[in-house]
């Protein structure tokens, strides 16, 4: 069962055990043990909220390095959909791509084209009576994992279309294999968030990712700015831009797929509430729920550098005057059947109190009694995000009642049998 990979990790030396990440984790996956904020692997969804909120920079995402490019004959960069919005409008897409090439990439793959292709199919699916509604896309992998953990009954609402990054990477590799047979091709995603990195290292719905690694926007940004600000670029080449770039912002998927009966939700806590309502059958009039764990959509990703609202403005400015890709071009070049993921999405079973219901009920009873002993103020000093979480951990033998500071002040547990 120890089959978890997470890109979010703790840098122990920097952690002060302050509990900020623990209190903000949407899945209560963090416990402070011996003064260090440990992540419970089965509960972590790699949303990266802890990276954003840590005052000491003690949470980070594992990425590859520029040195990892050397393993490949052809080195390609695939910037996240929100990548270009991180730079001032002063720097054109061409200039930014040239800076990436200066850094060591041979080519830059633009996935916003593929986002638009997928948006067309998303729109078609929304009219298909066979498709369970409201549809949910896998574009935000943190939300897909949230559904696997918390709302398994909504897995059937997840649409079977792959993400733009996977489609773009696979098609690029197919084309390269024809053009340069025998050459090794490495595609590196320049990521706005840890959840995307995890979905490359350990994909959902796919046996293997077509991408080979991931770098973070945050790490590359200073290097690129150095190149951009110190060199005049006289290149006359015009780089195409696509409406698909809107997938970087909240509402972009609905906009490009022209689905009107769609609800657009950002911020993981709000998404969790909407998913609960969907599970209750309360959103049956909707065709699509567009969800992002981060505020504003991918522009708000924890590995981005720019303010999400400024980045949003830039996406809107860049795409305002663009026209959509011709439908015939999409119909003739993309076979819908080849744009689907190949594995079933399975629920992730966070273990309950016990496999045996009668034992679980006994434990539940003890949790109830323990809650009477605990102060109920959710101070977090014990290292658990709430008194209830501590009670559950005590029953599961992961913590002790004496971990509660209020119990300590009172001179130990009132009831020794607990």
């Amino acid at each position, binding site marked *: 069962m120890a089959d978890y990979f997470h890109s979010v990790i703790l840098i122990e030396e920097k952690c002060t055990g302050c509990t900020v990440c623990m209190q903000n984790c949407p899945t209560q996956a963090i416990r402070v043990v011996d003064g260090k904020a440990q992540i419970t692997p089965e509960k972590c969804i790699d949303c990266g909220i802890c990276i954003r909120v840590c005052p000491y920079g003690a949470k980070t995402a594992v990425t590859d390095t520029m040195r990892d490019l050397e393993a490949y004959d052809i080195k390609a960069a695939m910037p996240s959909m929100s990548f270009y919005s991180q730079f001032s409008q002063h720097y054109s897409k061409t200039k930014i791509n040239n800076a990436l090439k200066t850094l060591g990439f041979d080519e830059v793959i633009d996935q916003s084209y593929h986002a638009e292709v997928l948006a067309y199919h998303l729109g078609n699916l929304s009219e298909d009576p066979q498709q369970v509604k409201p549809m949910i896309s896998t574009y935000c992998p943190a939300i897909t994992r949230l559904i696997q953990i918390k709302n398994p009954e909504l897995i059937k609402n997840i649409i079977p279309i792959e993400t733009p990054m996977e489609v773009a990477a696979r098609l690029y590799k197919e084309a390269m294999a024809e053009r340069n047979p025998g050459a090794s091709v490495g595609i590196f995603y320049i990521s706005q968030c840890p959840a995307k990195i995890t979905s490359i290292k350990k994909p959902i719905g796919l046996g293997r990712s077509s991408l080979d690694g991931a770098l973070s926007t945050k790490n590359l940004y200073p290097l690129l700015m150095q190149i951009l600000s110190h060199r005049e670029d006289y290149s006359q080449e015009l780089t195409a831009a696509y409406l698909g770039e809107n997938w970087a912002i909240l509402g972009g998927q609905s906009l490009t797929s022209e689905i009107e009966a769609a609800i657009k939700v950002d911020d993981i806590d709000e998404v969790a509430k909407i998913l*609960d309502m969907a599970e*209750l059958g309360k959103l049956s009039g909707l065709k699509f729920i567009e969800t992002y764990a981060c505020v504003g959509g991918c522009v708000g990703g924890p590995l981005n550098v720019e303010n999400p609202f400024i980045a949003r403005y830039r996406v809107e400015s860049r795409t305002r005057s663009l026209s959509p890709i011709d439908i015939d071009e999409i119909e003739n070049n993309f076979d819908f059947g080849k744009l689907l993921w190949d594995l079933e999405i399975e629920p992730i079973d966070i*273990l309950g*109190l016990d*496999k045996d*219901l009668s034992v679980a*009920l006994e434990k*539940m009873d003890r949790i*109830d009694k323990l809650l009477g002993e605990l102060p109920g103020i959710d101070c977090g000093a014990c290292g658990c995000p709430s008194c209830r979480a501590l009670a559950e951990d005590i029953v599961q033998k992961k913590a002790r009642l004496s971990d509660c500071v209020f119990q300590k002040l009172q001179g130990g547990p009132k009831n020794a049998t607990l």
Partner: protein
Amino acid sequence: MKFEYTITTQNFTTAGEASSNTKKTLKLLGIDSKIIRRAAIMAYEAEMNIAIHSRGGKIQLEIEAHRITIVAEDQGPGIADIDLAMKEGYSTASHEIREMGFGAGMGLPNMKRCADSFDISSTPGGKTRVVMTLNL
């Protein structure tokens, strides 16, 4: 194991808590997600009915090794014609409530559809009591 949730009339800020607590509890007990979903819908519709139509009431959740029982009981004013109330789309909710997106007349039929057994009793002017069970 029993849990009890108090529902205040016309309070739509807290309405939904009985359902979400039911869901959390059953999840922790390792109950199958299909059954959790049905229980959550039953609790949600019941607490919404109490908040919308009654003078207030409570929801009891009882979990035994072979069965889940949800009992919804309110303080009146009772249902005049139960057969009519059970019809899909029939609602006595006010215009204001409907404006808020509630009162579509699907509450009781939804509960009955999700439950393995469903029993409703009411006296006009008095209390209404709904007893629902799910087999485990």
